[in-house]
């Protein structure tokens, strides 16, 4: 897994959020979205997750999505990092950061980035349940999650 450290947007190390924001003088709005491992899915108690990625392709696709977002909105900052490997409940699975002069662009672009990452990027989630069973997630069927 150590080879994953070389990717910009895919990480096998824990993601932490900080109260510091990027030091960009023109930036008036900064949105941080965190996707967090929760203990329940489809009514089943989840004990932990494992994320798998086709890392080189996922890394390139996230770079492309961030680039598309920069073309659509006037962004001063855009970043996305997705975890792979074993994640415990309440750990951060993914973050999306966007910053712009005003809040509207930061909010809209952030939603755009996470939605495309969830639907398009080759990253898969395996759920492990309290009864000892496990299952690959069937894909994103809930638009609002």
């Amino acid at each position, binding site marked *: 897994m150590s080879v994953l450290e070389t990717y910009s947007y895919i990480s096998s190390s824990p993601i932490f959020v900080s109260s510091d924001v990027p030091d960009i003088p023109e930036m008036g709005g900064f949105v941080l979205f965190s*996707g967090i491992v929760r203990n329940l899915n489809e009514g089943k108690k989840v004990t932990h997750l494992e*994320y*798998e*990625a*086709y890392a*080189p*392709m*996922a890394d*390139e696709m996230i770079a492309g999505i961030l680039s598309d977002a920069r073309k659509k909105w006037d962004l001063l900052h855009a970043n996305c990092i*997705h975890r792979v490997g074993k994640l415990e409940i309440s750990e951060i*699975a*993914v973050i999306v950061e966007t910053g712009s002069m005003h809040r509207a662009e930061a909010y809209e672009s952030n939603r755009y980035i*996470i939605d495309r*990452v*969830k*639907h*398009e*990027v*080759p*990253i*898969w*989630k*395996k759920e492990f349940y309290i009864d000892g069973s496990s299952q*690959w*997630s*069937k*894909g*994103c069927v809930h638009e609002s*999650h």
Partner: protein
Amino acid sequence: MDIQLLFFAAVKDHFPDLKKIEVSEGDSILNLRKILTHTNPGSESILKVSRFAVNQSIVNDDFVLREGSVVAVLPPSSGG
């Protein structure tokens, strides 16, 4: 000719040992889909909803394979 195969997530469970496969000159992704389904009929439903990437780019069913193509079979993803 031989092509390399990469399986992920639920698809990997159906083809644990298959790393390469022989296809014919001119075979497309559609042909590969059929070959894989024939190899393991239990994989049919997941293969139907999977995307295919060749050398890390998503391709359509009519994409023609070449010697040494690295083909990734990508079931529906669910990042985040």
